[in-house]
């Protein structure tokens, strides 16, 4: 019966293992149920021409990253420079601007007309792209955030990895950094090229 002396130690070791695993998980990262499913269709106004619309049906045929961002999002500013480098490496990035005006905690969009909100959003996005560079092959604007709900967006930035057939293969939550790209995201991107 001497083994019983070791029982607390075994319990303790079990707890250490459990915590070593559990505390590495980030509860802020909510796994997306959309992985492996077709990217939900939508038609949103393009930044270059608000009269024309674009969506996954426009972009399919080749893999792309769908990058959800806004100018009021600090982490988006952080990843912006690296997105430009990715574009230079030939990565096709589609921008998805999320609640440019009403998402900004510093503003009260309830006082604005839709017309004024639209003009203000285009002005802010235009300044951002002019000052920081434009990494986007195409850019659509979701002023209300309604389309983003279909993608399960709950923050910015978020980046969806979508293959040439229009299927979501991966979702990255948070800014894309060089470190993350080289460690894991590049492989996810390259995997999109083969899978059609």
């Amino acid at each position: 019966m001497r083994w019983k002396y070791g029982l607390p130690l075994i319990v303790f070791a079990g707890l250490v293992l459990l915590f070593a695993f559990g505390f590495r998980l980030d509860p802020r990262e909510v796994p997306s149920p959309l992985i492996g499913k077709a990217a939900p269709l939508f038609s949103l106004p393009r930044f270059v021409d608000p009269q024309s619309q674009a969506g996954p049906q426009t972009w399919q045929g080749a893999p792309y990253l769908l990058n959800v961002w806004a100018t009021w999002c600090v982490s988006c500013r952080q990843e912006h420079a690296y997105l430009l480098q990715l574009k230079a490496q030939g990565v096709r990035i589609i921008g998805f601007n999320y609640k440019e005006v009403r998402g900004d905690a510093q503003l009260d969009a309830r006082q604005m007309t839709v017309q004024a909100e639209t003009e203000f959003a285009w002005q802010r996005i235009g300044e951002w792209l002019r000052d920081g560079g434009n990494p986007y092959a195409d850019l659509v604007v979701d002023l209300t955030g309604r389309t983003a709900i279909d993608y399960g967006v709950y923050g910015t930035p978020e980046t969806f990895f979508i293959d040439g057939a229009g299927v979501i293969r991966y979702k990255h939550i948070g800014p894309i950094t060089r470190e993350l790209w080289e460690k894991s995201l590049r492989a996810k991107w390259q995997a999109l090229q083969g899978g059609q």
Partner: protein
Amino acid sequence: MAARLFPRETLKQRCAVAAVVAAAVIGLAPLAGPLGQTAYAAGQAPEERAQPLSDPVLEARALALGRQLRCVVCQNQSIAESNAELAHDLMNEVRSMLRAGKSEAEIIDFLVARYGQFVLFKPPFDGRTLLLWVGPFLLAGVALWGLWAAVRARNRQAGIPPLDEAEKARADALLADEPLRKDLR
């Protein structure tokens, strides 16, 4: 003289008791968690950007449904209670779906398809959540078994012999609160 509950505490026994208590606490902790959260969340500030429905019955249904859905931004609040932007957006989405005649189940499916089962404060009972639902009871069971085994081992170790017939009769009499014979006192 009554047998002491803890005749001689050895290191072994203390360890066994400690392990049993730890297992019981860990096993029961998940049960206490949700209660504490609800009490906390109920005291939050009211919504600012809500667009309540004019029909009070429909609005009550929207709020009841919203309280079952987790806000993915703040995580420990429901979308009915949270002040996060996305929670307002989702509450307004719930409202417009209710107004369009959608059922509660359809709305829950809509949100689970986009944000995953994580949005459900009460996860469904299925294969993946089996441990979540059964785990606490399993651990409590293990803890009780451990306690029983430890007490039994202790009594055996303390050398308390089982009662013979006469002792048993006397114990029964004591328990039945009958007046005792003088020679037994």
